[in-house]
Every structure is written in structure tokens, then in C-alpha cells.
């Protein structure tokens, strides 16, 4: 009988503990305004989670953090590398959130902002008088959602055109889609069986960085309407892009193009087809400059903005951008300290220049981009220009960001292989899938 009572008592106490756990409200950022500055904060140890994983990346990030700890010697920062978004989300849910968390993608920003998983930084930004216009509008847009600024841009990626000068046969990089088509046809080399040996430009949406987000800016295509519903079926720019793309795929022959694409090397390794001279022109991020410097030292290449629709010359010079975001999760033990670290990493010019020089990503503030210590050559400058171009766009934050990209990409595979008879109807079906999911997510 005694053991029964003991068991019941144990279960009851466990239940009580379980019910009360997590009820204690964590400190909230900006709830009790504190003056910013090195002397005003008591000593603390901050936990910072980030996705950098290679030794060089981790060292660069540690160097940037070292700049912060010099300014705030009473604050110790413990960084955890190689962390994915899923781990951040789970940690927040379980009440074991780090003080600061960084993510490589912007896909979860909307969910993190809407759910309050990441704290709204607006009060402390206002409190510290930070002028956000030091960031390009596009960077501001992918780090906030529905008026909540729950992350800040740490470094950015910008996408442009790389071309192999030795394969270009003296041609200048194309500025319009017609020129890109024409040049692709001239530069493509086939063998006697018609198999592709060297491709001018691979138009497949399945090829490495050729996602609709990255190619969309070439025609100024819009993802969403004002109310968050899909604009893919109603924006004629998408149809323009897909029609151009399909014509080029058909010129290659889908089967031939697929055979060539599937035989190409790893995107992140030395065997990348651009490094090996198998493709004359590619769409890629600014990081390819660093990869070429490390893996294909002798490659004679140049960079340029992406070619744009013939009837939209004003888009030339723009492109796609997104990047690493950083914020203070809900449940951070030292939110005010965490904000100081976020502020330092995202707005301190020296810190951004240090990071950019080491990682070869685009720094996000105008001051950092113009800083004399920022290492840049003509090839890297192209991406700085694309990033600061007023028409450069991003994939707008959405609570279904991953789903929407997948829904469109799935359709594009069908499209390029010729399985879609009616493009308009197909795009409308994509709209429906995205809008249905939006409704399911509560609008």
C-alpha cells in the first residue's frame, strides 16, 4: 500500500513540476530600457549559435566576436558552430534558447517574427537611435515581417553572372535575355552525336543556383500580391521568363541538357563545371569568387550583372539578394547583452569589413561597403553594385516560404521537360497551391 501511495505522490509531483515548468517569464528585450554602452551592462556569458562550420568561417566569426569582447570585456561570448534552423526552433520551444542565433537562410524569418520566437528588436533599435537607412531597403525587407523586426542582416549574398573569358570568344557579357540566348548558342559545343561538351549557359531550373528566386529578378517577376497571396499566375513577367527559358531548353533538347547536367561535378567542389571550363556563363553568388580563388586559381573569368528582359533595360544592374540573419530568441537569458552583440555584428563597420574580407560575402551597411579596408577587386565590386542597386530584389518573407518555393520549383521541372500543355493554367494551379497553404496557415 505504501508503494502505491509513493507512486501516486511521485506522479503527482512530477505532474506539478511539468505544469509549472516554463511558466516563469523570461526577460524580454527592451521591456526595461537600459542605456546602451560598455559600462552599463553587468558581466555575463552569452551563448551564440551560428551556422558557420568550416575552420576558416569559424575563425572569421570569432575574430568579429573578439572585436565585441574588446568593447565589452565583462561579456564573454561562447559560440556554437554548425547550428541549423531546426535546432534553433527546438531550443526556443524547450526554453533553452541561446542568447543570440544566426541563420543562413531567410526562409524562417516570417515564422520567427510572427510567432514571437525571435524578439522584436524595434524598441531597442529606437532606444539606441539606430538609423536603419544604413541598410539597403531590400536587406531591411528580408529581416522583418508584418512590422516586426525580429532579425538583422549580418552579411548578404548577391547573385550575378560569371563568365569564362577564354570561352567567350571575345564577346562581352550579355545584357539582355536575347543576347544571352544568342551567345549561348554561339558558345555551346556539341560532339558528333549532338551531346553537349561545353554549354554556353545552362537554362535548367534544376541546375545549381538557377532557382526561380535567383532568375526572377532578370524579368522583375513578383512572388506575392499585397495581401500575401501568390502573384505567380498573374504577373506576366514569370510567363516571359518561362517562355524564354523553355525556348533555350528546347534548343538544347531536354534529354541532351539533362544528360549533360547530371554528369557535372559537385557545386561546392573543385570539379564545378565553371571551374573546369564546361560552362561559359553561370548565375552564381558572390562567394564563387572566393571558391575560384581557392580551387581554380588560373581561371580567367569576369563577372557582370545578370542579363535582363529586353523590354526592361532599367533592371540591368540589379539582381537577387538575401543573406545571413541574426537575432535574439525568446527566452534569451541576457537579452540586453545579446542585443549589444547583435548590434555590434550587424552595424559596426570594422566588424562587418573583417567578416566580409574573411568570408567574401557582401557587407550589409553602406559604410562597410565603402570602407577602404574592404578587400575588393572588379569581380567582387560587381556584387557590391548589384546589392546596392535600387531594383535589386529578394524573396519576400512569407510564413510558407519553403513551401511556396517548392510548389513553384515542382511545377518548373514539369514545365521544362515539356509536360505542361497550358502555361497559364499551370501557373494558376501554382497560385492555388500557394494560396490554399496560406489559408491553412491562417492567412
Amino acid at each position: 500500500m505504501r508503494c502505491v501511495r509513493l507512486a501516486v505522490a511521485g506522479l503527482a509531483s512530477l505532474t506539478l513540476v511539468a505544469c509549472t515548468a516554463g511558466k516563469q517569464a523570461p526577460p524580454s528585450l527592451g521591456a526595461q530600457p537600459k542605456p546602451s554602452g560598455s559600462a552599463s551592462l553587468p558581466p555575463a556569458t552569452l551563448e551564440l549559435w551560428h551556422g558557420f562550420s568550416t575552420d576558416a568561417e569559424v575563425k572569421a566569426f570569432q575574430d568579429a566576436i573578439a572585436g565585441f569582447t574588446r568593447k565589452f570585456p565583462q561579456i564573454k561570448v561562447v559560440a556554437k558552430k554548425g547550428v541549423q534552423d531546426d535546432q534553433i526552433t527546438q531550443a526556443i520551444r524547450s526554453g533553452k534558447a541561446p542568447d543570440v542565433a544566426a541563420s543562413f537562410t531567410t526562409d524562417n524569418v516570417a515564422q520567427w517574427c510572427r510567432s514571437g520566437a525571435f524578439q522584436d528588436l524595434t524598441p531597442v533599435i529606437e532606444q539606441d537611435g539606430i538609423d536603419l537607412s544604413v541598410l539597403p531597403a531590400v536587406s531591411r525587407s528580408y529581416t522583418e515581417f508584418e512590422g516586426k523586426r525580429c532579425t538583422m542582416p549580418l552579411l548578404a549574398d548577391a547573385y550575378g553572372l560569371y563568365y569564362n573569358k577564354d570561352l567567350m570568344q571575345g564577346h562581352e557579357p550579355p545584357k539582355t535575355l536575347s543576347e544571352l540566348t544568342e551567345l549561348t548558342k554561339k558558345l555551346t559545343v556539341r560532339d558528333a552525336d549532338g551531346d553537349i561538351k561545353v554549354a554556353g549557359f545552362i537554362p535548367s531550373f534544376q541546375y545549381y543556383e538557377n532557382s526561380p528566386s535567383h532568375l526572377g529578378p532578370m524579368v522583375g517577376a513578383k512572388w506575392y500580391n499585397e495581401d500575401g497571396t501568390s502573384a505567380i499566375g498573374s504577373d506576366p513577367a514569370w510567363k516571359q521568363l518561362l517562355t524564354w527559358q523553355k525556348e533555350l531548353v528546347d534548343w538544347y533538347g531536354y534529354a541532351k541538357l539533362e544528360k549533360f547536367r547530371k554528369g557535372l561535378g559537385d557545386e561546392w567542389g573543385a570539379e564545378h563545371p565553371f571551374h573546369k571550363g564546361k560552362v561559359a556563363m553561370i548565375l552564381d553568388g558572390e562567394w564563387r569568387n572566393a571558391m575560384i580563388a581557392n580551387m581554380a586559381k588560373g581561371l580567367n573569368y569576369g563577372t557582370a550583372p545578370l542579363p535582363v528582359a529586353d523590354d526592361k533595360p532599367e533592371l540591368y544592374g540589379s539582381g537577387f539578394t538575401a543573406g545571413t540573419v541574426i537575432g535574439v530568441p525568446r527566452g534569451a537569458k541576457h537579452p540586453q547583452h545579446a542585443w549589444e552583440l547583435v548590434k555590434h555584428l550587424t552595424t559596426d563597420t570594422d566588424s562587418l569589413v573583417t567578416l566580409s574580407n574573411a568570408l567574401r560575402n557582401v557587407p550589409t551597411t553602406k559604410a562597410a561597403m565603402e570602407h577602404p579596408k574592404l578587400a575588393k577587386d572588379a569581380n567582387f565590386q560587381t556584387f557590391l553594385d548589384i546589392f546596392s542597386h535600387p531594383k535589386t530584389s529578394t524573396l519576400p518573407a512569407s510564413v510558407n516560404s519553403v513551401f511556396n518555393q517548392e510548389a513553384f520549383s515542382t511545377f518548373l521541372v514539369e514545365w521544362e521537360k515539356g509536360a505542361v500543355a497550358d502555361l497559364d493554367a499551370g501557373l494558376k494551379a501554382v497560385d492555388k497551391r500557394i494560396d490554399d497553404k496560406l489559408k491553412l496557415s491562417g492567412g
Partner: protein
Amino acid sequence: MASHVHAAPSRRRRSEGLRALAWLSPWLAGFAIFFAYPLASTVYFSFHRYDLFTLEFAGLDNYRYLLRDERVWLSARNTLWLVVFMVPAQVVFALALAQLVTRLKAGVGLFRTVFYLPSLVPMVAGTVAFVFLMNPATGPWNQLLALAGVSGPDWFGDPAWAKPSLTLLAMWGVGNLMVIFLAALLDVPKQLYEAAALDGAGPWRQFRSVTLPMISPVLMFSAITGVIYALQYFTQAMIASRVASGATDSPGSSFVPGYPDGALLTLPQHLFHAGFRDWSMGYASVLALLLFATSMVFTLILLRQFRRAEELA
């Protein structure tokens, strides 16, 4: 006095009952924590909009969405394909290997080890290796086929070949199942074979009339666990799909599971994606219930079939 007489056994019975309950409590706690509570939660969440942080009642919205979701039927078809083709292929191949090992006159230990070894290879490593080996442009598999004058397919890149390629991978790793069958085959009394041989039964008849009935409980076990495993098939399909596509998650570009053309999208992958990539835990709960119901149906069908087969035998 009379009430005292009756009260004592009643108290004793209650005390014994409670004691039994106390002894059972570890199991009951395990059942409640690891089965009943998660199942009840899944049902509860299936009627809600749940993004891991906020919960909002959604009525039947998640169930209605199930009917409109094209990918769920695609993933269900793929999973069904694995149940219908991959599981029997694994069972037959493992049984054939076990039979082979029992008949070997020499090198039994060596062959048993060779056949078992692949099951020790970590799932992810084995899958990545298979995709590389079967790469149509650079993998040695097709190069060997070319030497024999056969033009190999695009194994993991062709929607028609992707699932058969996964089946080959599954057959390669049947070591555990082979060991179970081996034990079952060695357990069949030799006298039965001798008696059957005296009655004029050939090897096929002996296999059909002696071996199969004698190992049918093991067959039933392997079929049921195989079906449940196939219904939960996740890691290999996900890894093969990702490696074969060469796609990575970078800003503005996310991997679409199921490459090529959704051929490798299984129901558990779709569920995982709905919950942990799309943050739709309510809908993922509906998918989990669908998977649970499907597993139950398959298990009941198999149990009934095996019982019927046993009765006929």
C-alpha cells in the same frame, strides 16, 4: 461480526489489486507517455493550426487540406510501391541468401559474414555510396554495364528507376533479415526433409511443404516488420534524393524533397516536411494519423492472411 468477515477479503482483494497496479505502473507509465499521450496529442493537434509556438483551433481545415494536397497522394503512391515491391524483394532475397548459406559445404562463415556486413554500414553512408556508384556519368556501375554492352539507366535521376534503385539498396542491406531466416531454417527438423524425400518430394516440393510452413511465423514477422519499416521509409529516400539532385539549401533556393520528379517522396518525408519545414504541425498531425491508420490496416491484413495460410497448411 459478519461484516468484519466480509470486509477482510474485500480489503485484501483491493490491496492486491493496487499492488498489481503498482507493479504494472512502469509499463502503464511507458504506455501513457510514449503511446497514449502522443497519440491523443496528435489527434488534438490535428484540429488545430499549430506552428510550434502558437495554437489556434482550426476545426476540420487540416483534414480538408488533406484532400487538396497533391503531394500527399504522390507520396502515398510511392510508399505503397515500396510496400508492394521493396518488402517482398527484401524478404525473398534474404530467404534465398539464407537458403544458400545453409546449403554451402565450405566457407559458410565467410559467406555469412559477407552477406551480413552491408547491414553494419550506416544508412546514410550506404545510401550516399550507392548514389555515387550508380551515377550515370561518373559511377563505376554503368561503366561496368557498358563493358557488357548495356547502356545503364540514370538510376537515381530517372523517376522510373529511382524506386527500383532504392530497392537494390534495400536488398543489399538485408543482412539482419538473412540471419533471422538462417536461424529459422536451421531450426526446421531434418527428419521432416528425410520423410518428405522418402515420399518422393523434390527440392521445390520440400521447400513448399516443409520449409515454408515451418518458418511461417518468421515470415510473418519479417513481412509485418518489413511493411511497417517501408511505411516509415525516410532516411534513404531523403538522402538519395538530395545527393542525386545535387541541390543544397542556400538563400532563395531550397531543396525540393522527392527528386527526381517526386519519385522518392515518401509519406514520412512529406509529414516531416509539413511539420518541420513548413511549420504546419496541425496538418503534419493529420498525416501522422493517416500513416498510423495505414500501418494498422496493413498489419491487420497481413495477420489475417498469415492466419488463413496457417489454417490451410
